[in-house]
């Protein structure tokens, strides 16, 4: 069974229709960018400075009050959607597989964006960008995106979102929405990368996924743990008490992600892999609708 079978494509189409009907005018390309420029919709005034185009001077205000104010308009342009897909080896585990789950989500979001006439770019990363799908537009590009995702494999020996974010910032022609699909098991911490994107006026959206086993491990006794990403090993004795402490620690990790996102008004979705991906997308869309 391939990663993106006909059932998957049907679900994508369904999600696309639902997104248009429910969130008409409020999604992706239909959203205004925060770029101010030569649009037709008035945004605000600013004081005139020497050298400004006199065509935009508000003569009515000058006539009435004698003040030289320049009219500013909101520029209408396509939304750029950057999907950062965590392809580190820590994603290649669990049942269902965490990386497959992440790829399906990436595909779904890309499909919806393309259907809404947005530009989509996908970057698979670990400790550095592994593979990049350049910005593309048009629904007819869906198959190439799916093919890209299908060919993407996990690699690397660490995860470094900050480096990847720096690379994206340098590489991106314009700012836009950045969807980070990852387990966020970043050895150096994911916050530096997200902060960089925020500071460079990108809109980060975090999707944290993990398996049920990661949230609630069941093994007890003397065990040698083998980290699949770094190959690091550790011999431990797992007691009931330690299990309880682990679960507490993991929940604190998830809560810290949520708190961080709320602090900076970032969208945040977290889920286990046993939740169907279309359900997760629906949940995301509902959350976006409430926020907008």
């Amino acid at each position: 069974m391939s990663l993106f079978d006909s059932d998957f494509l049907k679900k994508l189409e369904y999600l696309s229709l639902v997104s248009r009907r429910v969130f008409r005018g409020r999604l992706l390309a239909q959203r205004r960018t925060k770029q101010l420029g030569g649009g037709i919709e008035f945004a605000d005034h600013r004081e005139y400075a020497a050298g400004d185009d006199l065509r935009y001077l508000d003569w009515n205000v000058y006539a009435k009050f004698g003040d030289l104010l320049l009219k500013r308009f909101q520029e209408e342009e396509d939304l750029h959607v950057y999907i950062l897909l965590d392809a580190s080896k820590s994603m290649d585990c669990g049942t269902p597989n965490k990386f497959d789950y992440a790829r399906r989500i990436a595909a779904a979001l890309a499909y919806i964006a393309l259907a809404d006439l947005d530009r989509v770019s996908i970057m698979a990363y670990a400790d550095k960008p592994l593979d990049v799908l350049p910005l593309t537009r048009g629904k007819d590009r869906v198959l190439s995106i799916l093919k890209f995702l299908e060919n993407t494999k996990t690699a690397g020996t660490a995860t470094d979102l900050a480096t990847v974010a720096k690379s994206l910032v340098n590489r991106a022609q314009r700012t836009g929405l950045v969807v980070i699909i990852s387990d966020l098991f970043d050895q150096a911490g994911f916050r530096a990368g997200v902060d960089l994107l925020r500071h460079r006026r990108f809109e980060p959206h975090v999707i944290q996924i993990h398996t049920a086993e990661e949230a609630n491990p069941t093994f007890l006794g003397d065990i040698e743990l083998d980290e699949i990403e770094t190959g690091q090993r550790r011999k431990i004795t797992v007691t009931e008490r330690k299990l309880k402490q682990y679960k507490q620690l993991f929940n604190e990790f998830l809560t810290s992600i949520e708190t961080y996102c709320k602090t900076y008004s970032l969208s945040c979705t977290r889920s286990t892999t046993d939740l169907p991906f279309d359900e997760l997308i629906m949940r995301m869309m509902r959350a976006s609708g409430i926020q907008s």
Partner: protein
Amino acid sequence: MLEFASPMLAWWAALTVPIFLIYIIKVRLRRRPVSTLLFWNQLFDEKKPRAWWQQLRHWLSLLLQLAFVLLLVGALIDPLWSWQKNSQRRIVLIVDNSASMKATEAGGITRLQSAKEIAKGLARSLRPGDEMSLVSSGGQSVVHVGLTNHARLLIVGITELPETDAPSALLPAIATAERLLKDRVERSEIIVLTDGCIEDFETIKNNPLVKIYGVGKPQENTAITRYQVRRSVMDSVGYQVLIEVTNSGLEEVKTKLELSLEDNLVDVVPITLKAGESQTRILDHTSATGGRLVAKLDSKDALSTDNSAISILPQRAPLPITLVTKGSLFLKSVLESMPLVELTITETAPDAAPKSGLLVLDRIIPEKLPRGRLLIVDPQNSADLMTVGESLEQPLVARVEKDSPLTQHIRLDNVLFPGAKQLTFTRPVESLIRDPLDSPMLARMKRPGGDLWILTCNLEQSDLPLRIAFPVLIKNAIEWLQGNEGQLRPVVPTGTLAAFAIPEDDRAEVKGTDTSADAPLPTQGKEESSVESANDSAVAVESAAPTQLRRDLHVSSPSGKTLAMIAEGDQALIGPILECGLWTVAPAGDTKTETKEGTKQVETNAKVDYRWAFASNLTNRSESDLKPRGELLTADSLSVVSLGGRAIWFYLAMLGLLLVTTEWWLYQRRVVG
């Protein structure tokens, strides 16, 4: 100082080496892939065990297992204290299972049960080389288990040690123990477990081999310490009960003594006894039927065995007497006045005397004397066994046999027997009354099938009927005929042998093997032998002919235990009697009177033939006094000697088991690695 019984087994300690190596090498752990170690590292690095025992927890398991192995090895090599090793003891354990050991202590446990528990602990503590024997001293000395070091055998013997109602026979038991140990006295000891209610305490205590350990605490007790019943000498249907009640406690006791005959209440006597006081009562009552007479104290004290006593009151059977006379007023009157006499008067002599009765022939006698017991008064003509001669010249009573029961209480000195004649007998006779020339005036002749008494005196001419001696003479004859069955059935104290006399009437019916060439059936009871021994040699020769009849009997105890025995002659020696209550004896094969094992004889009293039974009671002051007669060693010190009833190896093994259980529990809790 410790020594070891099996030091060679210490090689098992080498097991610790592989255990240690396994821990050092460590078993390969299960490997489990995880997506990240972030959280695990955080968990184990931040919360490192700080307590010393937590840091050593991986070693704790090793230490526990090594300790377990070492404890097991310790148990195998069987450590001995030096005194145990040096003194491979030979112990004779005497457990007092006398009646006083049935006294109930606080908690409802009898003294015997406590003694058994202590004895079991001692048996369990036996070391290799030690030997122990089990002897009981209740009523008699019994060796239950000979010298052995097989603890289980001893424990089974101790468990099966029965209770008895008999007084303590500690001196014989100690004598038995000394015989068991006589081949090697050194390192031998006799341990006595008793409550101290024993006679000759000082004698026993001074024996260097004996150590007396006490069981139980002093208790209050009121008891029947004497109990006998007899028929009244004054009244043929009356009886007298002798009862002594003793309060061996330290407080005054008010109680009631209830007397019942065949479960019918006869008398209730209130009794108040001061501390240590004894009171004796003699109670007079009447009953012709007899039966089971039970005296009971209305008292709830520590020992119930001595609160009741039982005896058999013999039945007074009617005596059939046939008087053949042509009108002897004196004989008729005196026989009619006798209680329990069924008198028949006739003028023609029958062929035989009434069964179990008496035929009285007045003056006229047939040529061939009838069978059975005969009383011939003033014979006028000769018969087959005697010849009647001329009248005596001086029919004056010169001598009366004082020792004979037939002539007891009779004073006839210088009394004339007018019409008395010279009598000559074809068989030896016993002359009970004689004239100055030694001619018999009252004689008794023994013959197979019934004795003869011949009185030569014309009652019409003599003043004998007017004297008090005449009815006494007739009464003596009748009571003698009834034998001891009508007098007294002695109660047998427990711990003694019971001499049971087979009822006279049933002797012929009891199956037996006659081992003598010519052994006539005895015709009289126990007094007969005393009569014979007191009389002349001619009589003695005949009566001395031994009865060599062997009879098979079954004896049933009050608790229903049955034992077979063989009686030589007319008397059976049974015992020693170890149970209080009603014992029954039955001829072998008598299905009517045999009892099955376990059935309570008391429950079938209605069917009991009391002639074939006897009663036994404790009636022993020493046993009823539930206070020790001297200072006893405490049983606790005996437990110390046996280290709480177990050997050291047992405790080591138990400790090892505890360690294994702890290690398992800690492992399940993941406290140890």
